[in-house]
Structure formats: C-alpha cells, structure tokens
C-alpha cells in the first residue's frame, strides 16, 4: 500500500496489513521528527510534496523491491504538513519469507525514498528561523520569519 497523508500514521495498522502466513519476517521502519541536528534545535518540521509524482515514485520503488526480493507485502506511508517533535513522518513495512530479505528490502525502500521521491522538509529552528532541507545544495538556507 502506498499512501500520502496529512493525518498521523497508524503504523500498527500498517504493520498488521503486511503480515502474512507466507512471511516469516516483518520489518517496520519509522522516520520520526528529531530534536537536535548538528547542535541545532528543531521545534517542528513542515513537509511539502508533489503528490502525483511522489505516489508514482513510491509505486515504482515497491515494484523494484518486489523484483529484487521475495516481498510478500509492502506498505509505505508518508505524512505531509506540520509535524511536531517525535511525530512519525514516514513508515515502511515489509514482509518476506526470511529476515535478511525483509531488512534489505526495507532499507532499500527508505534509502531510495529519500533520494528520489519528491517530498521536502522545512526545519523550524528554535531561534525562530526556518530552512528548507535540500541535500547537496551549496549554502545553508536561512530565512527569518
């Protein structure tokens, strides 16, 4: 299952949805809003996305994972909008016959998600500034609001 949502992610339900008697292993990855990054304090994150393309890319990643590992079920949910510290921003659940496959497929899905799926996060720092996170760009982006 692929989903983008503005609502809190029900990762327990997502995990249940990938369980199967064909699978001996279920792996769940959660991305959560971290407070400290290189000594700077985050108070919240805002996520923006390009929904049509993001969903298409997530479906492509699921297909690629299924072509590389014996995935029984897979589910990826990404939250958009305003998230507070500790909130779950992304959940990836994978079931496979054996644990190595499930770990590898789950890691592939979250690693590639972060590289190709058009979703962006904006830091809300504790000093009141905000900053889009755009990996690989030269300068630190800082805009007072």
């Amino acid at each position: 299952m692929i989903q983008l949502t503005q609502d809190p992610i029900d990762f327990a339900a997502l995990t249940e949805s990938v369980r199967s008697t064909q699978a001996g292993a279920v792996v769940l990855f959660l991305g959560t809003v971290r407070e400290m990054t290189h000594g700077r304090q985050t108070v919240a994150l805002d996520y923006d996305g390009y929904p049509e393309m993001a969903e298409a890319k997530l479906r492509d990643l699921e297909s690629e994972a299924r072509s590389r590992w014996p995935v029984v079920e897979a589910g990826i949910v990404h939250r958009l909008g305003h998230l507070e510290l500790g909130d779950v921003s992304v959940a990836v659940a994978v079931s496979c016959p054996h644990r190595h496959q499930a770990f590898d497929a789950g890691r592939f899905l979250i690693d590639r998600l972060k590289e190709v799926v058009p979703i962006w996060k904006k830091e809300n720092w504790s000093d009141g500034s905000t900053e889009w996170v755009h990996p690989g760009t030269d300068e630190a982006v800082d805009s007072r609001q």
Partner: protein
Amino acid sequence: MKTVVKLFARARDLAGAPTLELDLEESATAADLRAVIGEQVPALQIILPSLLIAIGNDYAGPATRVAGRTDLAAFPPVSGG
C-alpha cells in the same frame, strides 16, 4: 510557446508563486527550461544549478524536450523521510 511549470519547496518560496508561466522555444529542452527560468525569474538563480525538472512522474534529462508539455515541475533536491 507559453508553458506552465509547477514549483515546490524553496523554489516556490523564492518565486513567490506555485507556478511559473514561461515563454519557450518549440524545440526547448529541460536544459533550456532551466536557463529560461534563470533569465525570467531572477529570484530562482540562486538554486538554478541544483534545480530538478520533472515531466509527468519522471525526472527529465537535460536533452529531454519540454516545450508544449502541460505536466512540468521544477524543484530543488528532495528531502523526504
């Protein structure tokens, strides 16, 4: 020809708008589009080298033709997760 490009994240903030309407040559490629964005929207020059171009649900290579497409988007590197 008039071409509309959707913007996201910092590109949208810098442009101050969710879309751009640009005038492109009929033979324009994604590389041309990036150059035209820099010429017609100076506020986006700062992120031009890293600006990604998408056609529909796929990333466009520099030589991909873009003129006349109605499903173009431009945005900086992604940071989901």
